[in-house]
């Protein structure tokens, strides 16, 4: 193991490796920040350029791209309420309100620090778990998956906070929307109104761009003014943001762990990780009502889990040959194209390449975070420009992002429709986040549920006779009854209640 690590390290002394790490870092930041683009497209575009390279150098380059995407995405999440990539969605929830309050610099500082530290955490866990990768991959099957997604769905109720009925309604609508399309479980097409466009269902990226970004842009077009509000001070201080992460150590650790665990499970996807971490943070905080209004812990939770998950996702990818995420699938393609056999033997025969990936991710993350910390002042200035200038530019970026995914103009139409829909949801008091959680998790839960039943010949016992499933189920029950217990206790301690 040591030789492989040293082997990888020696590459860092080469000029071409260093240049490519920097280049990859920048590419990742840009693709991450531009809504709708993201890691998968960046990797797919860059892959052909790596053909002639030494595989080690190529993978330093590719992992450098992956390493900065998350932070890049958080920049637009914070400044524009548009998640640069889907897993940055939860960062909008507290990052954007902070920007509105004039604290954009602080928010960026939090994100940069949380991203960097979260990534380091994820990578450390990855290295520690490599010896037991097979065991871990074997642990998570459809029943476990279902329980986890169910847990995610429960969070809809918490995300609704105060607006329970509206929130649940929005969540339900989200779940229904997720069912549109061909169901591989049942082999039938559902709700697609006869159109082939909706065969695969509502495409997530354009939908999210619409619900988060375009709806907000519509809002601003109507309201006018600046993102940061007319009278606010110049963005807070970056260093305060860094300090916040250390102030919320427990939140950081908890979120990073959630991120890694969810990253390890192939298929759940990073989109889920940051929501679950966010809700968990909200739940364990002393002041849950402040979440969604600019609570630093919200950003800490979202971004540290987001970056930790990348380390987690590498585990099944290099350890077993199953991609932990869509980016990992492209990476696997990259392995094959460079003539490396993928599967359980990758770690044994090409441990140096694995270390190249790790080091690339690590260095790129640190670079991205440093960039964030240094440039936050300039980035934050965006929030002080009149929205009349911002709206058209960001709108175009959003439409480009929606289009570029499949070069299908209907995706742009979808984003537009989702934008209008999201705007009216906001106007009438339906929390968009509940809709989004329902949308992302709805059909996943259904699929996992039926897969589990197919496996067990229809027996529901499959959800109860496996250890991990029971553990998660226990957590769900705990999370559900906890408010009643604390509420009950509070009610006993004070005279009045309502």
């Amino acid at each position, binding site marked *: 193991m040591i030789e492989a690590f040293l082997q990888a390290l020696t590459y860092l002394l080469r000029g071409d490796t260093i240049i490519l790490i920097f280049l990859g870092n920048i590419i990742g930041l840009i693709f991450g920040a531009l809504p709708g683009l993201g890691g998968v497209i960046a990797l*797919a575009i860059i892959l052909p350029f790596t*053909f002639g390279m030494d595989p080690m150098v190529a993978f330093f380059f590719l992992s450098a791209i992956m390493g900065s995407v998350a932070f890049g995405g958080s920049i637009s999440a914070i400044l524009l309420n548009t998640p640069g990539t889907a897993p940055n969605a939860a960062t909008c929830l507290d990052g954007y309100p902070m920007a509105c309050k004039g604290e954009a610099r602080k928010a960026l500082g939090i994100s940069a620090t949380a991203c960097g530290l979260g990534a380091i955490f994820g990578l450390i866990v990855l290295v520690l778990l490599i010896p037991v990768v097979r065991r871990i991959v074997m642990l998570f099957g459809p029943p476990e998956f279902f329980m986890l997604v169910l847990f995610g769905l429960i969070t809809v109720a918490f995300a609704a906070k105060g607006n329970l009925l509206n929130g649940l309604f929005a969540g339900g609508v989200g779940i229904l929307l997720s069912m549109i399309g061909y169901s591989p479980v049942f*082999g039938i097409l559902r709700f697609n109104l006869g159109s082939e466009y909706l065969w695969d269902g509502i495409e997530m990226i354009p939908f999210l761009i619409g619900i988060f970004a375009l709806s907000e842009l519509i809002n601003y077009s109507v309201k006018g003014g600046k993102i940061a509000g007319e009278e606010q001070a110049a963005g807070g201080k970056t260093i305060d943001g860094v300090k916040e992460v250390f102030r919320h150590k427990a939140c950081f650790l908890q979120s990073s762990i959630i991120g890694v665990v969810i990253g390890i499970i192939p298929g759940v996807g990073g989109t889920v990780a940051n929501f679950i971490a966010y809700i968990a943070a909200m739940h364990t905080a002393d002041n849950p009502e402040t979440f969604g209004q600019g609570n630093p812990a919200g950003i800490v939770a979202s971004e540290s889990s987001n970056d930790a998950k990348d380390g987690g996702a590498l585990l099944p990818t290099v350890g077993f*040959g*199953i*991609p932990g995420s869509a980016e990992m699938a492209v*990476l696997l393609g990259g392995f094959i194209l460079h003539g490396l056999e993928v599967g359980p033997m990758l770690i044994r025969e090409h441990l140096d390449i694995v270390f190249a990936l790790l080091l690339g991710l690590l260095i790129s993350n640190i670079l991205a975070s440093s960039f964030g910390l240094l440039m936050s002042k300039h980035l934050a200035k965006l929030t002080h420009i009149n929205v009349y200038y911002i709206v058209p530019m960001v709108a175009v970026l959003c439409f480009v992002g929606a289009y570029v995914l499949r070069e299908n103009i209907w995706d742009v139409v979808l984003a537009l429709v989702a934008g209008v829909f999201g705007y009216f949801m906001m106007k009438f008091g339906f929390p968009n986040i509940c809709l989004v959680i329902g949308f992302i998790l709805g059909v996943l839960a259904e699929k996992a549920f039926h*897969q589990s039943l197919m496996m067990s010949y229809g027996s529901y016992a499959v959800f109860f006779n496996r250890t991990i499933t029971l553990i998660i189920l226990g957590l769900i029950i705990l999370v559900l009854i906890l408010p009643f217990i604390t509420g009950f206790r509070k009610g006993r301690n004070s005279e009045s209640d309502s």
Partner: protein
Amino acid sequence: MKNKKFYLYLAFSFVIFFTFVLAPTVAAGKGFPQKTITWIVTYPPGGGFDTYARAIAKHMPKYLPRKVQIVIKNSPGAGGRYGTNLLYRARPNGHTIGILNVPGVLISQMVMKTKYDMTQFAYIGACDQVKYCLSVPKNSPFKSLKDLQQAKKPVRMSTTGKGSSGGLMSIMTAEFTKIPYTMVTGYKGAPASMVAAIRGDVDAVMDGGIESQLTYITEGELIPLFVLGSKKEKYLPDVITIKELGYPELAPLGMYRLIAAPPGTPKDIVTILEKALLKTLDDTDFRAWSKKAKRSIHPSNGKEARDILKAQAKLYEQYRELLKKAVKK
């Protein structure tokens, strides 16, 4: 919305956007090719079709009369039909080609109405043929086809979807050899489907084909019980063939990676592409890659590709009703 400048700005931005989206590529000079060639892959990046396309696209330009770039365009959706449609409707000037999944999109055409007609494409050739084997996990109680046929409970087979290549193979195999079976579907990608079997969640898997299952077979995670073929497989010389087991009808089953241009592409252009493809498949560097990556090469020219299509169509035509029934079940 009182600001006139705002509207101006907005309109300007949209002009930029549409220019970007609709910008045509400018042709230069005469003859073929004149500009970058777009290669449509009907699946997301990272999978088998994508990998082959990228590997070929890397080495092919130098065999064209003018060394233009070949750029991969991933157009996934609707089980491969979206990209197939795109190729079908593209301008037949040779600057768009695609890699197609046969029998995948062929079966789609048989069981439902599609906007494309597989017989109309201008076939350039084929690069690979994927054969399948049925594998069980390490400690499976099933040790042979007979064991499966005599199973007391339906044999659970995992697949990404009943319409996928692996799913089709599973259905055809099980129905033909009368294995009592039930499909567990919905896995995201062949690797997930294979791992389901390794984990023991299901009893058998055919997804991925021999070429993707090989890595797990070598590690001992999956044990192949038989291969669908008439002669022994190169990398699985000890595994019995379905023909030897008495079901030669299943032997020709497999998945072919066909490369084609839109219907109506001029013959001379197709010939240029065909020659370039065949030279690429024989190229030293390309062959070196295929050996290292353990990806097989089965080169075919345009006519052979059309013959493959015809043979596959004939083969599955007999089972049309069975397929319709099984895919909808």
